[in-house]
C-alpha cells in the first residue's frame, strides 16, 4: 500500500465496512465495526509516522482523482498541519464510540454502519482538498448523525434530530451560497472553473458594497462564518447542541463533542480566514466578543443544569469559546492553544460522555437528583470521573491546561482586556465541574437503587484507558505531538494575512 493511497483508505475503509455491516448479523456487526475502526487506528498510525513535520504547511500524501473535469472538480485528498491533529483525533475516537455502543439493543448493524459512514464523512471533511468534495462530505456527516440521534436517542430524539438537522443545514445553505459565488469567480478570475481550495484563497474581491455596507468578501466570509459558528457552536447559535447531546446515544455524543464541533473551528481556519482574510480581520473583534461571552455564558448555564449531559454540552460551549478566542487573537500562541484545545476537548469531553454513558446504561437516568454518594459504591468509576473532571477544568499537568494557557497568552497579547475577562473562566469552569462531581459522587447515597451499581467493566476500561493515557501524556509532553504540525501554526498568520492591510511583520 503506497503512501498515495493511504488517505483514500482512511476515507473509504469505513465506508466499505458500513456496507459489509448490513450483510452481517447484529452480534457480529459490532465486532466487525470495532475491527474496522481499529484498522483506522493502524492507518492513522501510518499517517502519524509518515507525516513530514518539516513540511507541515504543505499538503502531503495527496491523492487526486479527476471527478468532474469540465468543472475542475476532483476527488482530492491531502493532509497538512491544520487537518493532521484533527484527523488523528477522529480516528482515535472511533473505536471508543463503537465500544460505548456495544450494549445497544435496536438495529445493531444499522447502528454500526451509521457510525462507520460518519467516520468516513468526518475524515473526508478534514482531508478534502476540493471545495465540492468538502461540501459533499460536510453534508454527508449530517445523515448518519441525525439517524444516530433520531433512531437511537432518548425520549425527545426526533425533535432533537430535526432541530439539529435544520439548524446546521440552514448554516450550510449560507456556506453553499458563498461557495457558488467563489466557484463562479474562479472562472472569471482564473480563467477556468476549479474546486481546488488552494485556488480559492487566491481570489480577489471587488470592494463594491452590495448592501448594508457589506462587500463581496464580507458576504462570503459571513456565509462561511455562520455555517461554522453554528457547528462550533458559538454563542448565540448554540441551542441545538444541548438538545442533540441530551438525546444522542453515548457514542453519538462522544463523536459529536469530540469531532463534529471541531468542524466549525477547522472550517474557520481552512476556509473562512484564508479565503476572506480582510473580512476576518474586520470581524475578528466581534467574533472574539462572542467567544468570550460563550466562555462565560456556557459556564454559567452549565453550572445550573440538572442533567449531566446538558451540563457537559454547555461546558462544550465554554471550551469551544476558548478555541475561537485563540483564533481571534491572530497570533501563534493563540492559534496553537486553540488547536491543542480542540484536540484536548475532544479527548476530555469524549471521556466525560463515556463516563456519563456508563451511568446511563446502568440506571437509565442522567439527572443529578438520581445520583449522589457514588464514590462509596463505585470507587474506580469515581477515580476516573474526578480524573477526567480535573482534565476538563484545566488542572496543569493534564491535557486541558496547556491549550487553555496558550489561548490566554495569545488573548493577552492581542488584547489584555480579553485575557482579564476570560481568565475568570477558570473559576467558573471549576465551579460547574466540581458541582457535577459533588452532585454525582459525594454526599450520602440518597437513592437505594444506586447501592447495587456495578463498577467499571473490562469493556469500559478498554474504552476509557486510551483516553486517560492521552490526558496525562498530552498534559506532560504536548510538545511531542505539537512538534508534528506546529510549523503550520507558526506560519499560518503570516501566510493568511498577507493579503490584508495588517503588515505581516507585526503579526507574530
Amino acid at each position: 500500500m503506497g503512501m498515495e493511497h493511504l488517505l483514500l483508505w482512511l476515507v473509504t475503509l469505513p465506508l466499505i465496512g458500513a456496507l459489509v455491516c448490513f450483510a452481517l448479523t447484529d452480534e457480529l456487526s459490532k465486532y466487525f465495526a470495532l475491527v474496522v475502526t481499529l484498522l483506522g487506528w493502524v492507518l492513522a498510525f501510518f499517517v502519524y509516522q509518515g507525516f513530514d513535520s518539516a513540511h507541515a504547511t504543505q499538503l502531503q500524501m495527496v491523492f487526486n482523482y479527476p471527478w468532474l473535469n469540465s468543472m475542475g472538480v476532483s476527488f482530492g485528498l491531502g493532509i497538512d498541519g491544520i487537518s493532521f491533529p484533527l484527523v488523528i483525533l477522529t480516528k482515535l475516537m472511533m473505536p471508543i464510540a463503537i465500544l460505548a455502543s456495544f450494549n445497544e439493543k435496536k438495529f445493531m448493524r444499522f447502528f454500526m454502519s451509521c457510525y462507520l459512514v460518519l467516520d468516513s464523512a468526518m475524515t473526508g471533511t478534514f482531508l478534502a482538498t476540493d471545495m465540492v468534495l468538502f461540501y459533499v462530505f460536510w453534508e454527508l456527516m449530517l445523515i448518519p448523525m441525525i439517524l444516530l440521534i433520531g433512531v437511537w436517542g432518548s425520549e425527545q430524539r426526533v425533535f432533537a434530530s430535526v432541530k439539529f438537522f435544520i439548524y446546521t443545514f440552514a448554516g450550510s445553505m449560507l456556506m453553499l451560497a458563498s461557495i457558488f459565488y467563489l466557484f463562479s469567480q474562479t472562472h472569471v478570475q482564473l480563467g477556468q472553473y476549479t474546486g481546488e481550495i488552494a485556488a480559492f484563497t487566491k481570489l480577489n474581491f471587488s470592494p463594491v458594497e452590495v448592501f448594508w455596507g457589506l462587500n463581496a468578501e464580507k458576504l462570503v466570509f459571513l456565509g462561511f462564518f455562520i455555517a461554522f459558528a453554528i457547528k462550533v457552536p458559538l454563542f448565540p447559535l448554540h441551542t441545538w447542541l444541548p438538545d442533540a447531546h441530551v438525546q444522542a446515544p453515548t457514542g453519538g455524543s462522544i463523536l459529536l463533542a469530540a469531532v463534529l464541533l471541531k468542524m466549525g473551528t477547522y472550517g474557520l481556519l481552512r476556509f473562512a480566514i484564508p479565503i476572506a482574510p480582510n473580512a476576518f480581520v474586520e470581524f475578528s473583534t466581534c467574533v472574539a466578543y462572542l467567544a468570550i461571552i460563550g466562555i462565560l455564558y456556557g459556564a454559567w448555564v452549565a453550572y445550573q443544569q440538572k442533567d449531566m449531559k446538558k451540563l457537559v454540552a454547555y461546558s462544550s460551549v465554554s471550551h469551544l469559546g476558548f478555541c475561537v478566542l485563540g483564533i481571534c487573537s491572530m497570533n501563534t500562541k493563540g492559534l496553537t492553544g486553540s488547536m491543542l484545545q480542540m484536540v484536548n476537548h475532544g479527548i476530555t469531553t469524549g471521556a466525560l460522555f463515556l463516563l456519563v454513558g456508563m451511568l446511563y446504561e446502568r440506571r437509565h437516568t442522567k439527572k443529578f437528583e438520581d445520583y449522589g454518594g457514588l464514590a462509596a459504591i463505585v470507587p474506580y468509576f469515581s477515580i476516573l470521573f474526578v480524573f477526567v473532571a480535573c482534565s476538563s477544568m484545566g488542572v496543569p499537568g493534564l491535557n486541558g491546561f496547556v491549550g487553555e494557557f496558550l489561548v490566554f497568552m495569545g488573548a493577552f497579547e492581542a488584547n489584555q482586556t480579553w485575557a482579564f475577562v476570560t481568565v475568570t473562566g477558570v473559576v467558573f469552569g471549576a465551579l460547574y465541574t466540581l458541582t457535577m462531581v459533588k452532585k454525582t459522587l459525594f454526599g450520602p447515597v440518597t437513592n437505594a437503587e444506586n447501592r447495587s451499581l456495578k463498577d467499571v467493566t473490562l469493556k469500559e476500561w478498554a474504552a476509557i484507558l486510551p483516553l486517560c493515557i492521552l490526558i496525562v501524556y498530552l498534559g506532560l509532553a504536548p510538545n511531542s505531538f505539537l512538534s508534528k504540525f506546529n510549523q503550520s501554526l507558526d506560519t499560518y498568520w503570516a501566510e493568511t494575512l498577507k493579503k490584508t492591510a495588517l503588515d505581516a511583520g507585526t503579526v507574530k
Partner: protein
Amino acid sequence: MMMPLLLAAPLIGAIVNGLILRPATAKRAGVIASIAALTSFASVMVQHFAPDAGPFEWTWFTVGELTVKWSFASDPLTWMMCAVVTGIGSLIHIYSIGYMSHEHNAYRYFAYLNFFLFNMLVLITSTSLLGMFVGWEGVGLCSYLLIGYWFEDINKAKAGMKAFIVNRIGDAGFLIGIFICYQLFKTLNFAEIAKLLDTQTFDVRMLNLAAFFLFIGAMGKSAQIPLYVWLPDAMAGPTPVSALIHAATMVTAGIYLICRMNGLFLVAQDTSLFIAIIGISTALLSALIATSQRDIKKVLAYSTVSQLGLMFLALGCGAYLAAIFHVMTHAFFKALLFLGSGSVIHACEGEQDIWKMGGLKKKLPSTFLTFTIGTIAIAGIPPLAGFFSKDMILYSALTAKSYGTTFWILGLLVSFLTAFYMVRVWALTFLGEYRGDKHPHESPATMLIPLYILAFGSIVAGFLGMPEGLHLLPNYLEAFLHPVLGPLVEGHGALSEERAMAVATVSAIIACSLGFYFYSKPERSETPGKILVPFKTVFENKFWVDELYGLVIVKPFDALCAFFAKFFDPNIIDGLVLLPSKAAQGMGSLLVLLQTGIVQTYLLFFVFGLLVLFMVLLKGVVL
C-alpha cells in the same frame, strides 16, 4: 539534593497506595506512605543543595519564542522549604497511622497525602513561574480531595469545593501575573527574571501590576483578606491534614512565591505597601475572631490565618527573611498544636468544642506537655521559636519605610491577642474539671512521637535566626538564605531592637496571664464576658463575612446563572431559533384554512387571481 528521588518517592507512594496495592488496613497504607515521605526527607538531608549540580529538565511545550520547561533545581531557599515540608510531612504521615487507624479505605487518605507532598515539592523546586503553578494547582487539588475526604457528609464535600473555588479565584490572578511577567521579561524562569531585574530598568507601574496579580494568587493560597474564607471551613478535613496542608505547608506557598520573586516585589513598592496592609488587617481580623471560637480547630484555623497575615506584613515591609523564618517556626508550632488538638479530639471521640473539654491535663499528659510548649511558642515567650521569628517580623515592621510605627503597634496587638486566645484554648482544654461525657484516653505512640519531635523543634527552631543584636548566637538563617533573599534590610525605628523585644515580651506575658486568669477557672470570664457581649457576638459570628459574601456574591451569582439557564437560554435564545419554525407552522395553519375542499371556493380564488393578473398586465401595457 537528590532531586529525582525527592520528587519520585511521594509520587510512587501515592500511585502504589492509591492505584496498585490499595491496602486494606490504615497501618499498611500508612507505612508505605511514611516510607515514601521519609525517603524524600532523607534525600533532602543526605545532600545539601547544589545549585550547580545541574538541574534536570525537559521541554514541556514550545510555541514560537515561548519555551516552557519542566525543570527542578535547588538553592538555599528551596532546600530549607524542602526540609520543612518533607520533615514535618514525614512526622504527620507517621502520626496519621495512629490517627486514621479506625478508618476503612485509609489508603485513599495516604495516597492523597503522598500526592500532596509531591505537588508541594514540585511547587517549591520548580524553576519557573509556570512550573510552580503546576504544583500550586496540584496542592489545591489535594487539599480539595482531603478536605472532602469524608465525602458522605455533603458539608465536608462542600467545604472542599469552597476551598478549591476560592483558590481558583486567586489562581486566575496568578495567571494574569504570569502573563504580565512574560510580557515584561519574555521569560518565566525565576533566575532569568531576577537577573533582568538586576540589570535592566522596567516600567515601575507594570512591575507593580505584575506583583499585584501574583499577590492575588498568594491571597488565595495563603488565605488573606478577602480570600481567607475557605481556610476555616477547610478544617472539615482530618486533623493531620489541617496540620500539614492548612497550617504548616500549603498555605505558606503564597509567602514562598513572593520570596521567590523578591526581586520584583522589592521594586514594586506600592504593591508591597498594599501587601503589608492586607497582611496586618488579616492578622488582626482573624485574631479577633479566634478569641471567641468554641471549636478548637476553628481557633487554630483563625490563628493560622492571623499568623499568615503577620508573614505578609513582613513581606510587605521587604523583610523576606523574617517571613520565611516565621514560615519555618510556625510550621513547627502550628503543626504541633494541630496534631495536639488532633490527639485531644481523638481522645474525646470526635468532640471539638473546648467548652466540653477541660481537665485533660491528667488524662493526656504527653499531649498536655507538648501542647503547652506549642502554646508558649506561638504566644511569643522567649526563648521559644515563635518569639524570635515574631520579633524579626515586628522589628522589620517598625523599621519599615512607611507607616512603620502603626504596623508595629498593630502587630503587637495581634501578638497580644494570639497569646491570649492560645492560653484560653489551652486552659479550657487541659485545666479545671472535665466537662464532657466521653472517656478520654491518651493517644498511641505513633501519634505521640511526632508531637515530641515537633515540640523539640518549637523550642529550638528560633535559635537559627537570633538577632545579631543580642550577641548570643550568629544569625544562621540569614547567612544561609542571604544569597537568595538578600540582606535583612536595616532601618531605624522609633525603638531599638532590644527595647522592642522587651515590650513584646511584656505584652505576651500580660496576655498569657490574662488568659490564664480568666480561663483556668472559666467562671471568672463570665463577668467580663457579659460586658463585652456586643464584641463577642461580632467575633463569634466572624464579622458575618461569610454571610456577607453569600448575600453580595454567591446569591446574586446563582440567581444570574439561574436566570440564564432557566429563562434566557430556553426562552429568548432558543425561542428566537424556534421562531421561524413556529412562524412556518402558523403560516401553514392559516393556509390550511384555504384548503377547504369545496370546488366553488377554489373557483372563486381562480377568478380573483385571473382578475389580478389581468390588471397587472394591463398596467404594463398602459405604461
